[in-house]
C-alpha cells in the first residue's frame, strides 16, 4: 500500500507545531497502525531526519499508552479498539491519513504526538482508592458475598485503561467518563461504600481543578471509548455526587 501521511510535528511544549506531509510505500495491510509508523520512523532515521515521537507500550490494547487522533477520531476509524489494535487493512491504497495528538488543555503536548496525561493520575490520587492498609489481616475474601451482577458491572467500569480518548473526542474536553468509571466501580461494591461521599466529591473537584470541561451528554466519549465504558457510569456518578452533596 502507498499512503500519504499528514502528521503533527512539534518540538516541545514551548514551540509551535505544524502538520508535516510524508509519503510512505510498501505498507502491508496486515501491519498494525503503529507498525506503519515504525516503518516511517526507520525511513526518517536512515534519511537523517528526526523520527516522529508517539506514546506506545504494550501494543495489545491494554496499557492505554497509545493516543493518536487519526482522521479526526481518537484511536482511528474502528470502534472498540486502541490505535495499536488498528490494522492497515482498514485503510485503502492511496489514502491520506491525518495523525494528530489527543488535544485538550489539560493534556499539554510534550513532543509531536506525545501528550502529558498526568492530570488523570492526579484525579485518581484525589480519591480513586479504598483506604485500606496491607496488613495480611484483612478478612477472608469470601466473607462478603457480592451479587454477580454487581461484581460484573464493577468490573465493566474498572476496565477503563485511562487512555484519554473520551477527553480527546469530547467537544468540552470533559473527563466525566474517566472519573465516573472509577466512582462507579467502587459504588457497585460494598467495600467502596465507606468513603463513597468523600470520594466522589474529591474526584469531581479535582477534575474541575485540572481544567477538564463539563459534560453536555453528547455521548461521543462512549462511542470512542476503546473499552466500551458506558455513559451510564456518568449518570451513576451524578447520582453519587448529588447524594454526597445533600
Amino acid at each position: 500500500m502507498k499512503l500519504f501521511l499528514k502528521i503533527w510535528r512539534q518540538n516541545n511544549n514551548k514551540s509551535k507545531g505544524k502538520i508535516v506531509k510524508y509519503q510512505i510505500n510498501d505498507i502491508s495491510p496486515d501491519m498494525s497502525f503503529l507498525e506503519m509508523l515504525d516503518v516511517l520512523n526507520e525511513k526518517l532515521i536512515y534519511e537523517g531526519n528526526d523520527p516522529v515521537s508517539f506514546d506506545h507500550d504494550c501494543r495489545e490494547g491494554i496499557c492505554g499508552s497509545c493516543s493518536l487522533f487519526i482522521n479526526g477520531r481518537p484511536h482511528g476509524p474502528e470502534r472498540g479498539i486502541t490505535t495499536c489494535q488498528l490494522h492497515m487493512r482498514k485503510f485503502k491504497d492511496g489514502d491520506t491519513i491525518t495523525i494528530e495528538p489527543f488535544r485538550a488543555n489539560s493534556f499539554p503536548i510534550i513532543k509531536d504526538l506525545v501528550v502529558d496525561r498526568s492530570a488523570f493520575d492526579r484525579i485518581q490520587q484525589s480519591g480513586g482508592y479504598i483506604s485500606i492498609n496491607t496488613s495480611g489481616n484483612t478478612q477472608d475474601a469470601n466473607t462478603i458475598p457480592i451479587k454477580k451482577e454487581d461484581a460484573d458491572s464493577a468490573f465493566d467500569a474498572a476496565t477503563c485503561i485511562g487512555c484519554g480518548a473520551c477527553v480527546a473526542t469530547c467537544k468540552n474536553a470533559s473527563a466525566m467518563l474517566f472519573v465516573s468509571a472509577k466512582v462507579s466501580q467502587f459504588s457497585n461494591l460494598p467495600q467502596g461504600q465507606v468513603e463513597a461521599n468523600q470520594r466522589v466529591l474529591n474526584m469531581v473537584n479535582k477534575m474541575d481543578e485540572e481544567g477538564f470541561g463539563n459534560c453536555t451528554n453528547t455521548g461521543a466519549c462512549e462511542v470512542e471509548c476503546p473499552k466500551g465504558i458506558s455513559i451510564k457510569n456518568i449518570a451513576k456518578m451524578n447520582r453519587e455526587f448529588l447524594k454526597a452533596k445533600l
Partner: protein
Amino acid sequence: MYLCTMGLYLTEKHIKYKKNGGGDYVSPFFIYHKNKKRTKVFCSLKISQKDWDFKSKEVTKGDSNYKTKNKKISSLKTKIEKIIRNYDSTNELLTPEKLKIELEVSKVISNGNKNINTKSTLDSKSPNGPLANKWTTHKGSINLVSPSNKRNIDIIVIGTGLAGASASATLAELGYNVKAFCFQDSPRRAHSIAAQGGINAAKNYQGDGDSIYRLFYDTIKGGDYRSREANVYRLAEVSGNIIDQCVAQGVPFARDYGGLLDNRSFGGVLVSRTFYAKGQTGQQLLLGAYSAMNRQIARGKIKMYSRHEMMDIVKVDGKARGIIARNLITGKLERHGAHAVVIASGGYGNIFYLSTNAMGSNVSAAWKIHKKGAFFANPCFTQIHPTCIPVSGDYQSKLTLMSESLRNDGRIWVPKELSDAKLVQEGKLSPVDIPEDKRDYYLERRYPAFGNLVPRDIASRAAKERCDKGYGVNKTGEAVFLDFSHSIIRYGKEKAKVKGIDGPSDEIIFELGEKVVKQKYGNLFQMYEKIVDENPYKVPMKIYPAVHYTMGGVWVDYNLMTTIPGCFAIGEANFSDHGANRLGASALMQGLADGYFVLPYTIGDYLSNDISTGEIKTDSSEFENSERDIRQQLERLINNKGKHSVDYYHKKLGKIMWNKCGMSRNEKDLKEAIKEIQLLREDFHKNVNVSGRIGEYNEHLAKATRVSDFLELGELFAKDALERTESCGGHFREEYQTKEGDAIRDDKNFKFVSAWEYKGDPSKATLHKEQLKYEDIELKTRSYK
C-alpha cells in the same frame, strides 16, 4: 599468589619431616600471596575415600599406598593452581575455607565448559527449622525499624508493575519515604497490566483438595526442581492473603451466582485455584496496587517520578545509596539518594525482540546493578508461552499472547496426515473440513493425564516438534490449531438443557455455546479477531509459542536482597520462585507476594542498621562519577552518527536469540551465538545511529541504551545455557533428551542456581553456585503423562 610444591611427595622421609606439632600428619600446601604472607593449607586423604579432606589426619609410618596418594596429590595440585590463577585475576584472598569450597565446586563443573571461572557457593540465608515455620520464625526474629525511624529512611523503587507498585504502597504505609520511578507516563501502564489469565492462591474454595503444600509442591515441580524451597513455600503461604487484600481494595474478581469468588484451572495443576477477572486479571490487580499507591502519593509518602528511567545505581562504601535517573521529558540526568534501592523492573524477554512484553520492557535496571556487583541468576531460564498469535511478517513489532486459560476449553491439534497439513498451509483446505479421525490432538495423545493443560514448556516444545516435522498449519508452517468447537457444543448442550429446550438444533446449540464461551473469553476472542481477521468461534485459532516471561533474574537471598547490600530485587526481576519454568497465574502471585507481604518486612532487617545514617547526600564523588559515566555513554551514542538504526540491531539480536537460544538449544548453536552477539555488540557501538539530542524528549536514545544492555545480557544468556548441560523446564538442550523427546534433567550435577558475577565483560563472568537443597520434596522426573 603461587603454590609452593614443598611437601608434595609422600615418602616415609617426608612424613616424618612434615609431622606437625600436634602429632598430626599434614600434607601442607603453602600459598604465597603478593604481600609475601603465606597461607598453609592442610590436606589429607584416606585411601578409601575419593576426595580430599581438609582436616588434619595422622598417617602411620610406612604408608604402603603412598604411590597412589602421590598421584592424587599431584592432580590436586593442578586443581589448586588453577583456582589460584582465577583468584589472582580477581585480587581476592584465597583462604583455606574458600579453597575447600572451590575444590568441591570444581568437581561439579569439571564435566562442563573448562574455561569458566567458578567461585564459592552462595548462601541463600534461608532460615532453619521445619519448612512450614520458616517464614513465621523469620518474621518474628528479624530486626525491625521503629515507626519514628522509618520517617527518616528513604527507599527508591524502580518500576511500578505489580511488584513495584505493591511494594511502594506498603513501604509508604509502614512509614518509609518512597521514591517510585517508571519510564511510562503513568505507573498504571506497567506491563503487569497485560497479564490476562489469573492469579493463583491456595484458598481451596472449590474444595478440591488444594492446600498451601500442594501449591508449593506444584510450583516446585512445575519449575522442574530448580527453585528455592523456602522461598516457594513462603509464596504459597502468603498467596491466600493476596486475594483477601485485593478484594478489600475493591478488585472486581469474577464471582459465581452465589456471590462468592470463582476459580478456574491452569496448566500443570490438578485443582482449580486460579482467581480471575475475565481476561484482564493483571489489569485489575495492577489498578488495585496503583490505587494503593495513589493513596500514599496523596499523603506525600510516595513521590512519583513518571517518565523517568534509571540509568545507574550508585554505591557508597559498598552499599546501594541511590541512583542516577534520566528525566525522559527534559533529557536531564538527576541524582537521587536513598537508604535502599528496590529493583522491580520486570523481565528481559525483549532480548528476543519479538516477545509478548511491552515495547518498553527492558533489562537495564537489573543489568546496571549486575554491572555494579549484583549476581545475575539463571539467565537462560526463559519461558516460551505456547499460545500466542503466530508471527505474520518482518515488520512485526511484538507478539500477542492468548491466555493460557484458553487451554481449559480449547483443544490443540494439527492434521494427522502430512498431505492435509500441506493443503492447509497452502490455504486449499479449511481445518473445519478435516474429519475428527484425521486430527492429531498431540498433547492429549502424549500426556493423557494433563492433556491440553500440561505446563507451558512442555506444550511449547510439543508444538515445535509437530511443526518441525512439517505439520504446521499456516503459510510459514509455524502454527497449530486451538479449537473451541467441542467446548461450544458441550456448553451449548448444557445450556439447552438448563433452558429446557427439547432436541435443540445444531444452530441453537452453537448459538448458546458461543454465548458461554464469549462470556468466559470474550475479550481474548475479540483481540484475536482484530489482529488475524478471522472469527475464532467458527474457525479454530492458530497459535504458536512466543517468548513471554523470564524466570532468571537478579540473584536474591531469602530477604530478597541482592549481592549488593541495600539493593533488593522483587517480582519478575529476581529469580527465586519459578525455577526453570513458571506455572500459569503464578507471576501475578509472586509480584504481589514480594511487594505486599515479603519485602516490606525483610527490608527492615537491613535498614535497622541504617537508622542513624541520616539523609543520603548526592554531592559525593560516587554520584558525580556515576553521572559522568552515564553522560559519556549517552554522548557516545548520540555522537556516533553511524549507519544503522537501533531497531536494526535489536532485530538482529532477536534473531540470534530465537534461532540459537530459543525453544531448544545445542552446544554448537550456543557457541556461535556467543560469537555472533560479541560481533554484533562491537558493530553496534561503531555503527549505531541515534538521532536527536540528549537534553530533550528522545525515545530513540532511551531505546539505544536499553538495546545496548540487551546486547551484553545476550552473551551471558548464551553462556549460561552453554554451561547448563542438562535439559530442565524452559531450558532444553537437544543433547539431553529421551527418545520420545522429553527432557533429561541432571540432578547430580546441576541441582544449583547459576549466579553470575560481572567481571568487566560478559565473557569474563564468574559463576557462583547456590546449591539447592530439597528437604521436604523428593526429586522426581517430571511426568504429566
